[in-house]
Each structure stands twice: as C-alpha cells, then as structure tokens.
C-alpha cells in the first residue's frame, strides 16, 4: 500500500495533538487498549473531555509540561491508503526537530488558533515549509468553535497567509485552508454543520485525495554508491556490484553512465535486486548494479547518465538551518555529509540571516545562532557532485557535523 507522509506544526496550545488524536479517533485507528488508557488518564487528571495528546506525547517531560519536544511518528490507515504523521514541536527552541520531522514529508498541516490568528510562530512554520519546498500545505484554522465559526475571522487569517505566500520564493505550493474544531470534530473527518459558508473538503477527505509520491520530483537520475558488494565466493568469483538507492529518474540495462567525480564512462550490465535481475529500475528502488567495464567505483561515488551530469565543484552556496547551541561562524570547519558522501567543509562566508517572517535579510552577521536560517558559502576538501535543492531534493541537500562532538549541527539547501 502507498504511504502518505504528513508533517504537522503548530504553536503551543493550538491543539495539534488534539487534532491528531481526533483523526485517529474518527478514523477508528485507536485500538481499544490505547483508548482505554487515554480515558483512564483523562479521568485521573480530572479533564471533562478525552485528552488525545496523551496518545502522542510519548516522553515523560512532554506529558509533564504539556508540550511536544521531539517528533513523534504516528501511523494509521484508511481503506485507500496508509498515513505517517510526523508530529513536530511548535516551540521555537525545537525548530530543529520540526525540520527533522518535515524534511521527508510530502504534505504539511500548519495549525492556527482562530482566536489568535497568525502569530510569530506561524510565520516560522510557514517559512520552513517553503524552505523545504513541501508541495501540499494545509492551513488548519482550529478552535473555530471558540469564535462562533466566524467566516470573517477565517477569511482574515486566509488573507494574511496568502499575503505571506506571495512573498515566498517557492511558487509551486498548493495551499488549502480548512476551518475546523479538533476538539469537537468539525471538518476533521466529518463535514461540519456549523460552517455552511465553507464549501471545501474536510481535512481527511483532502488528505485522502493526495497521491503519495516520492518527495523528490522526477528529475535527472542520481545513483550514489553506498557500498561495493564483492561476495568472494566460488559462484560469484568476479561479481562486483554497486549498491545504492536510485533518485530522480530511472535506470535501465544498457544505459551509458558516468562515474563521478572521476567522469569515467561505462554501461550498465545488470540491475540486480536480491536473487533476480531486472531490465529497468525506478527511482526509489534500492538495487545493486554491475557495469560492463572494470572501472574504479567506491562509496560516495555517483553514477549518472552521461548526458545528465550535475555540478561538480569544490565549493557551493547554500541556505542553512542551524541546529546547534554553539553558533556557526565564518572560517569554522565541519564535516559535510552530502547523501552518502563525506568531505570536510570550511565556512568561507556567512553572508546573511534570513528572517523567518518574510521581512528580508540581515546582511553580514557575525554568527548564526541555533534555529536561525542563513546563507553561507562553503569550501570543500574534495569535489562533490551536486544539484540545486530546487532541482533535486536529495542531491541538493547536506548536513554539517561538528568534528568535536560528532553532532549534526546544520542542514543545508544548495542553491
């Protein structure tokens, strides 16, 4: 079955966990024992209603503080498809966790409290959705019951978001606005009688209609080699297979390929998957490939079709989201992980901080702090074969790793 991956984002108390709980409840995805546990806890705490956030806030600290700290993954299915919801934290201090959850999502739900309208957090959530180029974004205007299901309030929020969207660089996004009440269930799974002025779909109906697909648009084929398979057995004495996952486009036996960065040319001899051979393989498949010629290929090298070569360079420009307490400064050195390839990288320039409220840039800052987004230039210890993030998400993104702590400290989007 196909899986649709959705990220959710909202500020504290926007009712994000309640919404997810409501979806699970109304789609009958909560099992009896889980529902019992929620009923019992809600009773114990003296709540008047079922606290669905208890289904998703899995850490003790989260339940204590009533907030989401880290991404939770929630799984459910309807007769037509399977869903994974990455429930991401709304707090500014957990922005990095939000990016983690949203990076692999195809669609995203941004929650807004109808009483408060668009707040600073909303700008940020919307900005990150645009930075990641998430194709389908649902603006869920929640707690409509507390504003008497006012069409005026809803339209005011819609207008503000549309204004932000007009300022965004990313124009390929589908925006959908839905008025709802997660607590009472209006327009979540069932159409509400309280919003006769709303002619659109319910949230679930909308999500059901989205076609699950790779987060990478179809583009040029990229095959980064993860490992070389050499069985060294009697039967497969000379077998030399290149194992990896295909991104962007398809590969077929007989395709002329270039090995990057060396640019050696060869042809695909076989495409193997487990104990069978295939003529073609589509993007998204993890396969093992053998080549006609005995060429030198190792981990981190990339196979591409000969007329589809990406940029090969020892420097790059990128937008970066900083994820570490220790700020980024120009002239610092990091490890860069670009797909399955590693190199060293030096920050040669920190040119700006991009404001997440779409109000512009701060030029030539001295540092980039935790959860800030900036523009940098990197010098690399060896040439990498990359695309822009716009052209190819997987081959246009990278992470930076602090060599002292081994932590992942930033995620970059190549220009």
């Amino acid at each position, binding site marked *: 079955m196909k899986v649709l991956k959705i990220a959710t984002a909202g500020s504290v108390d926007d009712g994000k966990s309640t919404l997810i709980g409501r979806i699970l409840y109304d789609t009958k995805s909560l*099992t*009896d024992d889980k529902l019992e546990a929620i009923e019992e806890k809600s009773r114990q705490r003296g709540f008047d209603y079922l606290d669905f956030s208890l289904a998703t806030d*899995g850490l*003790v*600290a989260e339940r204590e503080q009533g907030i989401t700290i880290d991404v939770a993954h929630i799984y459910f*299915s309807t007769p037509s498809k399977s869903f994974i919801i990455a429930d991401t934290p709304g707090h500014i201090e957990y922005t990095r966790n939000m990016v983690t959850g949203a990076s692999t999502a195809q669609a995203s739900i941004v929650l807004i409290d109808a009483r408060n309208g668009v707040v600073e957090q909303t700008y940020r959530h919307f900005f990150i959705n645009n930075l990641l180029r998430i194709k389908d974004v649902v603006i869920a205007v929640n707690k409509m019951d507390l504003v008497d299901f006012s069409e005026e309030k809803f339209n005011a929020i819609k207008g503000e978001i549309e204004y932000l969207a007009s300022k965004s660089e990313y124009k390929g996004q589908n925006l959908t606005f839905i008025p709802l009440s997660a607590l009472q269930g209006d327009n979540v799974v069932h159409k509400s009688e309280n919003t006769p002025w709303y002619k659109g779909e319910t949230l679930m109906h909308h999500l059901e209609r989205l076609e699950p697909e790779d987060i990478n648009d179809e583009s040029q084929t990229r095959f980064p080699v993860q490992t070389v398979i050499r*069985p060294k057995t009697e039967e497969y004495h000379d077998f030399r297979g290149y194992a990896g996952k295909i991104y962007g486009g398809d590969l077929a036996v007989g395709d002329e390929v270039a090995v990057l960065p060396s640019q050696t040319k060869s042809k695909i001899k076989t495409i193997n998957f487990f104990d069978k051979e295939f003529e073609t393989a589509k993007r998204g498949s993890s396969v093992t490939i053998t080549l006609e010629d005995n060429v030198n290929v190792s981990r981190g090298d990339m196979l591409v079709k000969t007329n589809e070569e990406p940029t090969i360079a020892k420097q790059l420009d990128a937008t970066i989201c900083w994820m570490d307490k220790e700020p980024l400064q120009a002239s610092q050195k990091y490890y860069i992980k670009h797909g399955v390839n590693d190199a060293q990288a030096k920050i040669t320039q920190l040119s700006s901080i991009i404001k997440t409220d779409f109000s512009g840039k701060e030029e030539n800052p001295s540092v980039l702090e935790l959860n800030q987004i900036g523009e940098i230039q990197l010098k690399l210890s060896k040439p990498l074969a990359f695309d822009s993030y716009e052209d190819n998400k997987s081959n246009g993104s990278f*992470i930076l790793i602090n060599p002292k702590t*081994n932590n*992942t400290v930033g995620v970059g989007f190549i220009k």
Partner: protein
Amino acid sequence: MSNKTIQVDALESEAIYIFREVVAQFEKPVLLFSGGKDSITLVRLAQKAFYPAKIPFPLMHIDTGHNFPETIEFRDRLVKELGVELIVRDVQDNIDSGRVKEETGRYASRNMLQTETLLDAIEEFGFDACIGGARRDEEKARAKERIFSVRDDFGQWDEKNQRPEVFDMLNGKIDLGQNVRVFPISNWTELDVWSYIEQEDIEIPSIYFAHKRKIFVRDGMIWSADDAVVYRDKEEVVEERMVRFRTVGDMSCTAAVLSDAVDIAKVVEEIRDSSISERGARIDDKRSEAAMEKRKQQGYF
C-alpha cells in the same frame, strides 16, 4: 532475463538503504535476533541488501532462558541456512553470578534483565552498531526514536537531545565507547511486517499460528500453562484453547490471544481487523505509562 521493472516498495527500499549505511559507516555491527517476526524480517532485508554476498555481520541473541522452545529450534535452523555466525549470551549467567537479581512473584519477568547482558556483550565484542527490529508504531516512546539512535557507554538514551535526522542522511559518527542502535523497520507497522512475511513467503516459528495449548486466564490475559517459567497460582484454572502469540518475547511476560488463524493469510486478516494493539499483550509495558521510556534510558533495546 524475464523480469522487467522492479516494483518499488518504499518501506523495503528504505530498510535496505539503512542496512547498507550501517555496513559502510560502522566497523563492528551486529543484528540483535530474538527469533521473533520483526528480527526474522530484518534477516530477510539484510539478505536482500547484500546479495549475492552473505550477511556481513553476526546475529546475537540475548537469551532470557524463558524462550518458547519453538523459537530456539527455529533460530538454530535459520542461522545454519544463512551460514552466519550466531552469538548467544545468557541472562542466566548474570543471575548466577549475582550481578542482577531475578524478580519474583506472579508478575516476575526477565525482560528488564536483558539490558545488563546486552550492555556486557556490546563491551565484550566491541560492537559499535546494534541493529534491532523495533518499530515506531509499537509504543509511544518508541515513536520518538531516531533510525540511528546514539547511546553512551552506559547504553543510555538521551531522549531530549537526539540528533536531527533530515532527509535520509544518517550520521553514524560516534566517540569511542558510544554505540548506535539502528532501527531499519522504524516506519513499518505491525500489519506491514505481517504483509511482508506473507508476500515474501518467509518462514516464522509455529507459535505465531493458532494451535491448541493449555492456558489459564489472569487479569483478562491468556497465559501459557505448559511452561514452568510462567508463574501460576494453584487456583488459576487450566484449560485447552486455540491460541496464538502476536509477539514472541520472554514467555513470562508474553500473553497469547484466542485465534483460529492457522496460516499467514489468516494472520494478516486477523491483524487488519484487530481492535487491540500488539503490545496490549505485553505485561511489561503495562507497568506504568513511562515503562518503555525508563527501560530505554537504562540501555534497553
């Protein structure tokens, strides 16, 4: 060459990608094998990831001594077929030497005691990556877990400071003494695993299928009455019923379910219609709301 195009199975493809990253990034990986359906699925995925080469790491079983005999027999046969090394470390050894104390009473289980044996084995062999079959849909603390989950030398999980994991880039860089727990089927659900077992025609231990067994009922759960390790009060009545097990853990904390699913197709059907979660039959998770999180902080897998 009769096959045209590979059918893309996103979950399978992701798991294979993760296995290959483990072998490329770590020096001494090991696959934690319990004989349960999740670890059996991992073995098939590992075979696929490295074929025609053999699985390039050993399997390790942390043996509570409370296994269903069918599981052990199955394990030994599988390992022989694969031609891979099997390491077994016994919880009993730590109990005998007095390093850990066995629980007593009607809810006693050796599940918690596995942690100490696992950590000892990691140190003994110098494993830097332990591959496990945990899934995020199992339990809400598991739902927070990364695919590469870094543990310190006490095996502790620092749940509030996990490394960001963006796109499919996996950062396996660690300090000496640290190790990584790897979960290739993180994004699979119980139903996904069963459907895969059906689709791939993977053999699994017989206790997963409905069979006649002597059982008794306690707290609304069904316990095996055949086995000495399952504590039973004298007044608890034994009867014979058709049952099967949904998970295969320590016998003393794994309950059975009434079922007539005698083959894989019927099991898949049963899981699809089930209104009880998989871990609903694991008494160890019912101890408290934070039972799993606490165990993980202490190094449980």
